[in-house]
């Protein structure tokens, strides 16, 4: 437990001082919204289109952060340090996933208001409590799968090329469920029916991949 806290604290401190990941992710998200505005030629979005733009943007922005997740460990020998320390190796996974959740929440705190400002006319703030639940569950899934895949990709030759092509198919269920849960919330007028089912799917995904990552992570951290 202390090891997890120490590693996560280290990561967040490094991020606070270098400001490497989150600002880039946020900038990427805002720019992508602008791209979507021109690409779709739409001033205002609602329902499924709004949900799609939001989740595609968040997912792609998340990839930026996930790609950087283990860079310091690789470049400065952090993996050896973790292996030599008398701690469970899984604590690295949990700490990294935790740090990634913090990054994602920080990203969303910036990206969501901008999204609302750019694209949503009315009723956005009524949807926020439920939307926050959907987003947090999706973040959890993205963080667990992202941390696991990042630790795989960082040990390969292809590294940042490999990560997106591994991550995107695996996170399709997250996008399906999160976008489907967001669609009624961003409809005019606001609906809530059908949200619960998709929240359950997200929770199931988080549970399965959380347990799976926990089970296999040891094998990624040998030698």
């Amino acid at each position: 437990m202390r090891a997890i806290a120490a590693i996560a604290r280290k990561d967040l401190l490094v991020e606070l001082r270098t400001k490497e990941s989150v600002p880039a992710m946020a900038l990427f998200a805002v720019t992508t919204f602008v791209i979507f505005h021109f690409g779709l030629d739409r001033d205002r979005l609602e329902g499924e289109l709004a949900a799609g733009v939001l989740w595609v943007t968040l997912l792609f922005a998340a990839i930026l952060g996930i790609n950087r997740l283990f860079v310091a460990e690789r470049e400065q020998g952090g993996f050896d340090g973790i292996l030599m320390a008398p701690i469970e190796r899984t604590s690295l996974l949990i700490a990294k996933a935790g740090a990634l959740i913090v990054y994602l929440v920080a990203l969303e705190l910036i990206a969501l208001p901008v999204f609302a400002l750019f694209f949503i006319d009315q009723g956005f703030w009524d949807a926020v409590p439920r939307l926050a639940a959907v987003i947090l569950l999706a973040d959890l899934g993205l963080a667990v799968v992202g941390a696991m895949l990042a630790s795989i990709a960082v040990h390969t030759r292809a590294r940042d090329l490999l990560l997106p092509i591994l991550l995107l198919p695996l996170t399709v269920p997250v996008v399906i469920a999160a976008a489907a849960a967001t669609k009624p919330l961003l409809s005019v007028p606001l609906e809530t029916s059908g949200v619960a089912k998709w929240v359950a799917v997200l929770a199931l995904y988080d549970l399965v991949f959380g347990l799976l990552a926990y089970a296999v992570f040891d094998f990624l951290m040998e030698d």
Partner: protein
Amino acid sequence: MIWCSAFWPTRYSTSSWRIDLESTLFGRGLKPLAVATTVLLATTLALVFFYAPNDADQGFIQKIFYIHVPLAIVALFGFVAAGVMGAMHLRTRDDSWDARSYVAIHMGVIFGVAVLATGAIWAKGSWGKWWVWDEPTLVSFLIVFLLYVTYYPLRYSIEDPQRRARYASVFAITAGAFVPINFIAVRLAENLVHPRVLNQTAGDMPGEMRLTFLVALAGIALLYVTLMKLELTSKNARRQLRRLRMLLEDERTGGAAPPPVATVPAKPV
């Protein structure tokens, strides 16, 4: 030599597996298996064309179902089996399990190409479009296929053989667990617009159709097993050949102490 001993580092640990393990890595039984596959597939084709009735709705085009659906079922089972083999590799550290897992995924991907092609043909014949997004099984299969295709770049961008085997196994397990989750999510997301023949397997498919389908399923499954065995055998033969060549090379140059002979018992293939 390091490469060879890294790939086959241990003799199989438990004797109860030995027979089974060796027989899948060597050519024994390959011929009868191939003959059985050929007979069964020929029977399947005969049944499909001369025995099974034309579908009342879709007519003749529906007969592609007897190839398409078994291919898909076998490929998906192969993917899940590859996950189990990956888990066996992680548990036993026996690299032959990694080889099996690799070949299972490899064959699954090849079958997957056939599934997508036959699915597109069926969609064109039946609904007039090469691709439809409201067919959840097809869409799920595409996503699973896209995931498994990334197995190759992952595997080939790791140089250390042990790490490669371990990471490939972790991928196989993760992706194997992903298969059902993905099907649940996609199935929920689609409104079931089209009546699907697969649903009828449980219920009201006529007897002739069901028999044909089951024979086709058995034939395709046998084809998968035969191809898998064939590739494992040839991989193993190639590896042994390379090892012997290196041994010869060492002898000729009078190299250092000879490595242990026959990490894998040499047998006729």
